[in-house]
C-alpha cells in the first residue's frame, strides 16, 4: 500500500505525515531514531485502521519547534494535533520513545473510547537495569541495539546506511537531546501521574529488549489501572520490525475494528 504524504501545519511548524488505510483512526508515534518510512507493520494495520504516521517536530522532515523543552511539551502538541485532525475514538500506538509521548498524552486527556498501546515505552525509570544511553554510542550502534536479530536491521537500513540516513539520525538525535537529555528518557513524576490514566492500555514488550528494560513494562502494567502486558519472545526493542504481524494482531484484537 502506498501512503499519502502530506504536511500538517500546526503550532508554527510543518509536520510530515504518512497516511493510509480505512477504518478507525490509528496514530503511530515513532521511536527516537525516527520513522524509517512506510513499514509492513503499518500496511498490516491499514487493512483495518486509518493509519496516521507523523514525524515528531524536529524529526524526519518535520520542522523543529525550538521552544519545546520536554517530552511533555511534545505530548501536549500531539493532543492539539489529534484535535486539529479531528481524530476521535483514536488508537494510539507508541513505539519506544513514542510510547513515552503516548503515555503523557493519555495522562492529560481522558477518552474512554480511545485505546492506548505502549510498545517498549520509555518514560518511566526502570526499577531494575537502565535505559540504554544513546548519547554515549554511535547512531548505528544505537539503532542496531533495537534489534535482537541484526538481519532485521540490515533488511531495513542496509548494511551500509546512506549518508542521508546517517544525517537524519543525527537530526533526530539532536531533537531527542533537546527534550530528553536529563533525566535520560524518563520523567520522575511518571510513576505517580500514570496511575490516573483511565484509557484501556495494552503494553507490549520484546523479551530481549536491550534499550528499555522489561521492568519498565511491568511497572507500567502495575501502575495503569486498565492495562495488560504482552511479552513477545525472540524480539528486541523494535517490535514493529521484528514481530510486525504479532504486534498488529495484538493491536487489532485489543482495539477492535469499531
Amino acid at each position, binding site marked *: 500500500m502506498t501512503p499519502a504524504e502530506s504536511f500538517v501545519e500546526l503550532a508554527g511548524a510543518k509536520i510530515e505525515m504518512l497516511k493510509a488505510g480505512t477504518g478507525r483512526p490509528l496514530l503511530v508515534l515513532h521511536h527516537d531514531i525516527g520513522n524509517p518510512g512506510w513499514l509492513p507493520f503499518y500496511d498490516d494495520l491499514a487493512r483495518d485502521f486509518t493509519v496516521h504516521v507523523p514525524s515528531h517536530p524536529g524529526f524526519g522532515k518535520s520542522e523543529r519547534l525550538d521552544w519545546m523543552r520536554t517530552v511533555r511539551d511534545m505530548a501536549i502538541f500531539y493532543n492539539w494535533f489529534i484535535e486539529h485532525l479531528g481524530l476521535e475514538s483514536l488508537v494510539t500506538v507508541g513505539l519506544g520513545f513514542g510510547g513515552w509521548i503516548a503515555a503523557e498524552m493519555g495522562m492529560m486527556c481522558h477518552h474512554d473510547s480511545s485505546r492506548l498501546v505502549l510498545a517498549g515505552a520509555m518514560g518511566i525509570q526502570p526499577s531494575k537495569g537502565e535505559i540504554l544511553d544513546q*548519547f554515549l554510542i*554511535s*547512531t548505528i550502534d544505537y539503532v542496531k541495539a533495537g534489534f535482537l536479530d541484526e538481519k532485521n536491521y540490515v533488511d531495513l537500513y542496509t548494511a551500509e546506511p546512506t*549518508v542521508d540516513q*546517517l544525517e537524519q539520525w*543525527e537530526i533526530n538525535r539532536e531533537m531527542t537531546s*533537546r527534550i530528553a*537529555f536529563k533525566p535520560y528518557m524518563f520523567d520522575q513524576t511518571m510513576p505517580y501521574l500514570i496511575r490516573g490514566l483511565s484509557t484501556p492500555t495494552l503494553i507490549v514488550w520484546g523479551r530481549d529488549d536491550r534499550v528499555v528494560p522489561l521492568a519498565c513494562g511491568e511497572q507500567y502494567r502495575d501502575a495503569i489501572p486498565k492495562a495488560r502486558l504482552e511479552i513477545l519472545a525472540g524480539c528486541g526493542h523494535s517490535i514493529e520490525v521484528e514481530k510486525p504481524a504479532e504486534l498488529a494482531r495484538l493491536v487489532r484484537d485489543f482495539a477492535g475494528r469499531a
Partner: protein
Amino acid sequence: MHLMYFTEEPMSAYPEDEGRKFGYTALLFPNKFFDPVAGSRLYEERMIEYQLAEEVGFDGIMLNEHHNAPFCMQAKCNIMASILAAITKRVKIVLLGNPLPIAENPVRLAEELAMIDMISKGRLVSGFVRGGGVESLATNTNPAYNRERFEEAHDIVIKTWTVPGPWRWEGRHYQLRVVNPWVLPLQKPHPRVWIPGVASKETILWAAQHRYPYIALNTSIEDSKAIWKTYDEEAEKSGYKGGPEQRGYLIRCHVQEDEEKALKNARQFMWMMGEFTGLQHPVWAAPSGYLGPWARRALAEVRVGRRKLRAAFGPFEDQLQRMLIIAGTPDQVVAKLRIIMEETRPGIMAFWGNDGKVTHEDSQTCIKLLGGEVLPRVREIAKSLGLNSPFDSNTPVSLSETPSSQLTAAAD
C-alpha cells in the same frame, strides 16, 4: 606584546598502553588508572614551574580546564588560578578558560573570578570557552543548548560585574532570584575577557562582535590568517579595526641547550597521539547539537567511523615542518617564531612549553631558556613589527565598553 607560559598539566603518570588498549583517553576511560600520589607530585612541580616562569620574565600564566581525561589535570581552573593569585606577584593569571555552559550558576562563577581578581591585585584575565563535548557529557549538561548557555552565562557574568545589584535574572537557561554578590572584581570596568578557539566560525564572529581578543590554539599559519580575516571583517562591521590587540596565538614551543634534546622532548607533544585533546571519540567529542546545522552531515559520518573528526595534526616531522611544533635551541626557535609573528601579527602569544613526560628538570630548563633568551628577542621583534597587546594599547575591554566616539562605523 603579552607573553604567556602554558602547559596542559597532564596526568602523564597513567599507563599509556591502557589508554591505547581502551581506544579513547576521555570520558569513559576508567579513572582507576589515575594515580593521586603522582598527581600530588605533578601539581607541586607545575606550581614551581609557574613561579619560575614569573621569575624569568613571562607576562602571564595561561590556565585551562578539562574533565575526565589524562591530558589535563585541571578539573577546575579557578582553583589553580586562586593558588597563583597567592604564590605569584606580577604575572597575569589568564584563564582560557572557564567552560561557561557547564556552569550551573554563572553568578557563583562571577564570584569566584572576582575573588581571584582581588586576591591577585587585579591580575585576572577571564577567558571563557564552550568546553569540549566531553565536558558537557562529564557534567551532564545538555550539549544541544551549549551555545545558548555559553551566551546567556556570559551575559550574566558581565552584568554581575558591571551592574550594581540587587537584580533578578529570568532567562532561558538560568533563573536567579537575587543577584547581588558581595564580591566584585578589582579591575574596572571588569577583567579582560579573551576567547580561545580552534577555528569554530561562530566563536570567532562572537568574539569579534564583542571586541574580545581571540586566542587561536596552535592553528597553522594559513588557518590563523583565515581566522584573522574572518575576525577583522566582523570587527569592521562592528565599528572598529581589528589588529594585534585582538590576536592571540598559542604555540607548542620547547627549548633546550642542544637541538637533539629539544627534539627528543618535543616528541612528548605527540604523547596524546598528536591530538591536543587526546584520543578523541567520534560521539563524545562533539555530541549531537553541540555544533551548528552546518556540521551535521559531516558529523553523521564521523559518528560511524566513515570520516575523521577533524584533520589530525599529522606526524611529528610534518608538524615541525609546518611550525605547529617549534623545538630547538633559542636561536632556532626565535627564527621560526619571527616567521609566525611576521605572517600572523599577534599581540598576545602563549608558549606551550612542556607536555607529556618531559621531566620537571627539563621543563625548568625550557622555561629558563624561554625567559632568558627567547622572550627578550620576541619582544624586540614585536616592537619592530608594532605588535601591541591590549595592555600595551590600553584597548577597551569590550565593544560595549568602547566609547562611541571611537567606533568608526557607528551608522546612526
